[in-house]
């Protein structure tokens, strides 16, 4: 059974959401502030498989918690926010959230995103892929540039895999959203753009010779094959 950690200071909402997710056969853990949430990762017990994180919390807010969490853990994180400001969405994704939902949300929508992020990597072959210095091992969901292993979040890995499989071809944003986030693209959806820009940074930090990701105006993204 997969475990989901819900972090929200709204205890009533936590209770309802826990009921809902338990009904869908998930194990649910609750935390009402950022420190309690981070404590779930330091105990000896089995760490959660996915985190649903509220942005606005008294004390340390959700974005700070996310930043701290990402220093050690790459598990899927869905940000929940009642602000709904597009800027918040981008900030959340920049800090490494896999996906973002604003309150109020349709519970089925949340469930679909949770399942999509947990499902991961089912499709396609498990054959290792290498493009220039970049190597991907789909069976382990790990990636390297040269000898350096990339620390990628789930969504980032899925996007990298989708681009690498189609290297040299443009992959449109709708397809990338499906592959990376497991859901259809929405209007004003910048999630993929933010994830790709993080990916680019991670690739070029690992090595300036790593394959690049180009944006193709109006259609999508393209991983360039090294010319050698």
């Amino acid at each position, binding site marked *: 059974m997969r475990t989901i950690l819900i972090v929200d200071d*709204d205890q*009533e*909402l936590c209770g*309802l*959401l826990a*009921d*809902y997710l338990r*009904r869908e056969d998930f194990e649910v853990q609750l935390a009402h502030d950022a420190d309690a949430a981070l404590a779930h990762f330091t105990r000896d017990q089995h760490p959660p498989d996915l985190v649903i994180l509220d942005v*606005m919390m008294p004390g340390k807010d959700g974005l700070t918690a996310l930043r701290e969490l990402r220093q050690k853990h790459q598990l899927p994180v869905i940000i929940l926010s*009642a*602000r*709904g400001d597009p800027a918040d969405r981008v900030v959340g994704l920049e800090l490494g959230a896999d996906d973002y939902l*604003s*309150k*109020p*949300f*349709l*519970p*089925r929508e949340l469930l679909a995103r949770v399942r999509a992020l947990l499902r991961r990597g089912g499709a396609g072959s498990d054959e290792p892929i290498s493009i220039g210095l970049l190597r991907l091992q789909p069976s382990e969901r790990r990636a390297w540039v040269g000898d350096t292993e990339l620390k990628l979040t789930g969504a980032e890995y899925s996007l990298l895999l989708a681009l690498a499989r189609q290297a040299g071809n443009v992959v449109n944003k*709708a397809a990338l959203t499906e592959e990376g986030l497991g859901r259809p*693209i929405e*209007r*004003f959806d910048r999630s993929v753009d933010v994830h790709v820009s993080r990916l680019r940074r991670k690739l070029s930090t690992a090595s300036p010779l790593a394959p690049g990701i180009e944006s193709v105006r*109006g259609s999508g993204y393209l991983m360039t094959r090294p010319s050698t």
Partner: protein
Amino acid sequence: MTLAISALVMGRIAQENYATIQPDWRDLASDTARLYTSGGMDTVMAWARPLQRRGIRIALLENGRNLLMAPLPPPMEENLPQLMRDPEIILHPKPEITLVGMDVTSEDRTLRFLAMRAPPRGMPRFFSPRTQLPMLIEIAVSLLVIGVVSWLIARSMGKPVEQLQRVVRRVAAGDLSARIGAPLAQSQDELGQLARDFDHMANRIESLMERNRWLLRDISHELRSPLARLQLALELGRDEAQPSVQPYFDRASREILRLDELIAEMLALARAEEGAAGMTLEPVDLAELARDRLAEAKMELDNRGLRSSLQAPETLVIEGHPVLLGRALDNLISNAIKFSSKDGEVQIRVAPVSEGVQISVEDRGPGVPESELAQLFSPFYRGSNGLRANGQGLGLAIVERIVQVHGGRCLAANRAGGGLSMTLQLPLKAPV
């Protein structure tokens, strides 16, 4: 200021001039008597001549007899009985005439000294021939003094005023943290007072804006949290409910989303207002923006089976607020999509016009009755065919507000071939 100084200086001149004319009558009397007893009548006459030019006439009497050769001037003659009455008397038969009579003794003779002071005939008092030249010099000197003093004052005020102006403009342009501060706000003069008052006002505005911003965020949070709980509670209840009541659950769920949309739109309207208050202008390429916003709407257009077209120059840059303008375009495009019937087309045109640019978004929908066109931009206004729309009635109000803060205007018209045409006219640079 200069006026006050010149009035002051002119006043001084007048006073000084008056003082030079106003003689000491007793000295004059004893001088006259002494000269008479020592030098006789001719000496007195010679001595009195320059006095005459200053408008002063004198006479000397002994036992009622005029000792001088000249007859008494008429005003003196007319008032003679009164002038002889007391040992010392000053009369003003007319405001500008002074008559003096007093006893004076010289070498045991008791004489009666009479004097008259009147403005020289046909000439204003100040411009008597004798005073004319020094007068002009005095005016020239005083003008010079005024000039120098004004320059000094202007220089001492110019810098603080310039500083005040700079800060006022920064606050007006949205930098609410700008303050005048020390040393100007500590000086004790009127400018210092003004600076303190301004800083006080800026503090108030800043805290009000800040509170407003927090209030908006809190309202958003406080309204959306119960909606989120409601949505979950509904979903939990739905599983237990019989199939016959499922539509009501769907309905309730949709209403929650509507409320959420309404909150979002009200926040957007409030942010447009707020953005207007703290708007910083930057170059915005409207052609680029239109291409971008239309590309964003592509999916929605495709889903509805609508075509779209864009006519725009390569670039068309104005000074404005890119986020707000993007929002205005989004709302117009959404509106056009919403009212389009199947196989319709959304047309966007961006073009320079005299003194600005014009953006129009057209649909091939049913249009709006002419009588309702003007009210289209009012908040919560729903036209008679508004039933088809599922927006909350704030979209166009937001557009209008955004255009207003850019110093432009919105026009709504029915297209000749059916459909609605929304036009935004914007100046090249938004007023701050």
